[in-house]
């Protein structure tokens, strides 16, 4: 494998649910160290694509290449072992326990024959993670998750994925239900994460958020490719809006328009 190869390449993916064509020949590509933003309206096939990618669903047709080699994940655990982690917006944290304990749920560090929790290590590592994701100000891994703001919680999930050596993070609408200010915190975390060379797929229906962090944009509509743009080819997010409006037949422009406020806040 050379570093010229994309980290991930998906070719001609098809997935039908009964008579519904959720994916109809979809291609995506993620290069090393980039944030690829997958943009499409609700129901365009974004979630199905990700579920097929990590083995939650088996695609009907199509090939997936991970680090240049063809893969066929049978379940999300296999994808996880390969270094692909999905960060969901609404699940993934236990609200009432501390940041440090959340970081290690299910893979707690222990010491001694009784398997005692290595609380000291948990706190030290958690402090480092908070630092890395730009939440140093929080400075307290013993704080229960519920005391963190929504954006901080998203950032903790991202930090946890990084801690466990993810090579590719898939973020499914990470800013949904967050205020502008909170969204900014998460976007900052994503930018810091990219600096470490971690690649990401940023899934959103919000073009302006996509434009804010994305290096490359792939549009999806009706389970098909609806265009691909590198950021330096674009003059601004408006061009993406136009493209998507064109493929979506213009009917959904109002919905995208609603997000303009958010965009103004984030830029």
């Amino acid at each position, binding site marked *: 494998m050379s570093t010229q190869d994309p980290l991930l390449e998906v070719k001609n993916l098809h997935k039908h649910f009964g008579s519904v064509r959720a994916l109809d020949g979809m291609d995506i590509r993620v290069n090393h160290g980039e944030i690829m933003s997958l943009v499409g309206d609700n129901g365009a096939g974004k979630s199905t694509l990700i579920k097929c990618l990590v083995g939650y669903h088996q695609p009907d047709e199509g090939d997936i290449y991970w680090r240049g080699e063809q893969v066929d994940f049978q379940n999300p*655990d296999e994808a996880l072992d390969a270094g692909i982690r999905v960060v969901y917006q609404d*699940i*993934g*944290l*236990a*609200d*009432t*326990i501390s940041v440090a*304990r959340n970081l*290690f*749920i*299910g*893979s*707690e560090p*222990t010491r001694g024959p*009784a*398997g*005692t*929790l290595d*609380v000291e290590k948990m706190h030290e590592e958690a402090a480092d993670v908070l630092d890395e994701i730009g939440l140093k100000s929080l400075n307290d891994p*013993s*704080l*229960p998750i*519920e*005391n963190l*703001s*929504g954006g901080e919680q998203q950032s903790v999930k991202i930090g946890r994925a990084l801690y466990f050596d993810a090579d590719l993070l898939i973020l499914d609408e990470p800013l949904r239900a967050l*205020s502008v*200010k*909170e969204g900014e915190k998460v976007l900052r975390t994503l930018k810091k994460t990219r600096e470490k060379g971690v690649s990401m797929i940023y899934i959103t229906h919000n073009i302006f958020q996509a434009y804010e962090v994305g290096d490359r944009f792939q549009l999806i509509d009706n389970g098909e490719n609806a265009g691909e743009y590198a950021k330096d080819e674009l003059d601004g997010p408006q061009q993406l809006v136009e493209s998507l409006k064109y493929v979506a037949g213009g009917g959904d422009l109002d919905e995208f328009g609603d997000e303009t406020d958010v965009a103004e806040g984030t830029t």
Partner: protein
Amino acid sequence: MSTTVANRRISQTKRILGRNPELAAVITVAAVTALFFILAPGTMSRLGVWGDIFRQTAVIGIVAILVSMLMIAGDFDMTVGANYAFSAMIFVWVINAGFDPILAALAALAFGLMVGLINGVLVTYTGIHSFIITLGGLFALRGSVLLVSGGTYVTLNREPASLAIFNTELGAQFSIAVVWMFVVLALIGYLTHRHPFGNHLYAIGNDRDTARGRGIRVTRTRIIGFMMTAAAASFAGILVAARFGSVQASLGEGMELVAIASAVLGGCALFGGEGSPLAGFLGALTFGVFQVGLTAIGAETAWFRFFVGVILIVAVIINRQIRGFPIQAN
């Protein structure tokens, strides 16, 4: 800006309580104790009265500590009272049959573990809420107790020396049951706060899907929780049988509710994810102080139940008010 400052201020209280969720329960115990010190200073300052309080607390405390642990994972065990009675009877029968009390205790504990296994398997495999499954278990088990005992009582016909493990006076009304309770508290406290098992319980109580997604064996962990809780009820039954030498068919009726009340008084949430074994102990201790205190001031015993209800409601309201809901900084 002002909202941010306000949020910060509430957040500080929440920070303290977040890290010390038992603080409210400690304050409750202290307040109730102070009340009886004022009402009956002569009685409450005697060591023997405290021996009595701890003795009262020990048996229900052991059960409440485990019920609290189970509630962290979001589960209930309504069978503890009936299981307690049945196990106490097994303990008596096995000793009466000529076996050593240690063997008798193992037999009773084995019964308890079996009850817990059945509870756990039924709850996890049917997906029906544990409150309902174990409520059914409560009736079935209490019915069994009445059937096998003929509705009366069983009495120890001999007192082997090793019975002392479960029943020894330590002076000033303190008994060995108090020591056992602290052993249980230390052990369960360790498992809950200093072992991955506890972290898994909290994760399960918060959100089972998240726990499963992080690789926790949710079903197995919950079944173990049920088995440990049932074993604690059996152990409490052993202690009470060793102390009184006789077990009534009605022993432990309503214990399941007192244990849950203790857990909730100590700060356990009804829907899981919050609380600690210490909470169960502190809740049980509050009730113990009340029970002995009311006797000390010469009140009728019926007042005890009345005040259990009142304290429970007041404590939960105050706890809610202080802890509030998670604050989202907007």
